[in-house]
């Protein structure tokens, strides 16, 4: 049992290498319950790999991941998901052949086994959650449409909706506003902020304006390591960040 005050998620000395290329080097990170955390870093800093490690997709060569005091190493993706870690992927991944509502009902279903789906109907609470979420992500009018027919931004939201409807303890959100309009970005920021507190949220994003809007603690990754942590203003003033970030962005950003 996690003691009160102990971190919800803790990464200890994680190292990951692909064919000799070190994607993560001795990475350490802690996340407290109810926290909203932004992670930024130039391309290739290892942001997505870092999420892959938490969700069990990539097994680190060294180090350990603890969630509520329990090691996640050796758990499969679905087991980790069932522990209460939800993930939104970088480019929106929803089930395009299913309708919006069907996407959400798959996410909300419990237990997530063949027999569970066949035997149990959705409870009224679950249905209410779906309706509520449809309103939150503004997709109620399109509930019966195929997800494939949604716009990019709507898919992003649907995916966030699918995350939230599961009521996970920890939300891992990978570039939620890529390709969204300003208005949509704003609403997404508000949504994530409103989720924090009840949930713990970790956001990875390139969009600095968006991060600033979140008004939260920021972690900067660089070459697979934590470069620094702090508020957005602190981080932006850190000379190391300016160096790697601006330097890198000049070379790498198209």
């Amino acid at each position, binding site marked *: 049992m996690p003691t009160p005050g102990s971190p919800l998620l803790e990464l200890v000395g994680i190292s990951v290498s692909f064919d000799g290329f070190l994607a993560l080097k001795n990475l350490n990170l802690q996340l407290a319950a109810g926290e909203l955390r932004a992670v930024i870093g130039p391309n290739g800093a290892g942001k997505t790999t870092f999420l892959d490690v938490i*969700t069990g*997709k990539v097994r680190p060569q060294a180090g350990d991941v603890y969630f509520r005091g329990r090691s996640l190493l050796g758990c499969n993706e*679905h087991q980790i*998901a069932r522990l209460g870690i939800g993930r939104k992927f970088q480019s929106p991944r929803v089930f395009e*052949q299913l309708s919006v509502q069907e996407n959400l*009902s*798959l996410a909300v279903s419990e237990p997530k086994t063949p027999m569970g*789906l066949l035997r149990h109907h959705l409870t009224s609470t679950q249905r209410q959650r779906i309706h509520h979420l449809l309103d939150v992500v503004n997709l109620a009018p399109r509930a019966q449409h195929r997800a494939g027919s949604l716009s990019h931004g709507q898919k992003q939201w649907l995916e966030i909706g699918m995350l939230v409807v599961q009521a996970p303890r920890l939300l891992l959100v990978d570039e939620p506003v890529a390709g969204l309009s300003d208005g949509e970005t704003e609403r997404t920021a508000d949504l994530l902020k409103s989720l924090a507190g009840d949930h713990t949220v970790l956001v990875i994003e390139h969009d600095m304006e968006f991060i600033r809007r979140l008004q939260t603690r920021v972690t900067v990754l660089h070459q697979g390591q934590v470069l620094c942590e702090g508020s957005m203003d602190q981080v932006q003033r850190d000379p190391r960040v300016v160096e790697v970030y601006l330097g890198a962005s000049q070379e790498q950003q198209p």
Partner: protein
Amino acid sequence: MANIRSRWPQLLLGVVGLALVVALPSLVSPFRLNLLGRYLSLAIVALGIDLIWGYTGLLSLGQGIFFALGGYGTAMHLQLNCHGCSRAPGGLPEFFGLYGVQQLPWFWEPFHSPWFTLLAIGLVPAAVAGLLGFLVFRNRIKGVYFSILTQAALLVFFNFFNGQQKLINGTNGLKTDLTRLLGLMVGSDTMQRYLFWLTVLLALLTWLLCRWLVRGRFGHALLAIRDDEARLRCLGYNPTPFKTMVFALAGALAGISGALYTVQSGIVSPQFMAAPFSIEMVIWVAVGGRGTLWGAMAGALVINMGKSLISEAWPQTWLFIQGGLFLLVVTTLQGGVVGWFQEGGPRRLLGRLGLRPRLSTYPALALETRQEGED
């Protein structure tokens, strides 16, 4: 409530269909009826393939294994309970005499019981499929790897059944025409008529079962596995039991289909496990339209009828036609024929031929999306 009016055509279709099924045996010759019954039983295996391939994205090239297992189970029971058949020494089925077998192999024993046989027709193939599926899916082997492994498994079963004369009569297979079921000779016209009706009934039930499965959240989970398995995992689903279960179910359906096919064609042989037959099954589904249950059934029926008629007229050309069909469906008609109709294929074709102005205005598009939303 407004739906009731739009249900009328469907109801009418059902009544006409039922009348046709009841009347058919007196309308066509016993030979054609028998063919129809057999092809209808193939529609059941096609439904299973549609479940695993059309909905779940697992292309099995080994359904012949389960099909044949169902057929062998039935034939073993019939051979054991064949009163008045000529017998080998010791009262064993006749073929054992050819190889000097005196003692009934142990796995034949339970097939004396009709109840065991009925269960085994579905459960044995399901168990084999489930085991194979579990071993393969557990390791996240999928895509073409899965297809190849199923094909290899098929070859293994083919070799085994072909090679084990003393156990199962090898290449010759087991025959049922001269055996008796419920006092009637299986090959007789009366029995064949009953079997036809039974096949219609079972095909219908299977269709209803599959429809129920794919329309609910279980079916949605299958589609999700097909389209983005990794995403589904991150929603907390473990795809392995889903895949194993649906593969086992498809195996059971194949077994039932094989049993019906065997009693109607009079023989089960290792040829049912020959690689081409299993791949043909996939073509039926592909041509009919994978991911649509009607398409799978219609594909099985129509292609087999076509094969029968064409090979009666020009035996040499069937391979060309079959190969061509494959290429056509795979390269241009990906949704199969039913899919093509659903996606407005006929209108597009007419438009392309200049017979009808193309409708590409906004109202038309809106109409299309609304239709999509409805089904």
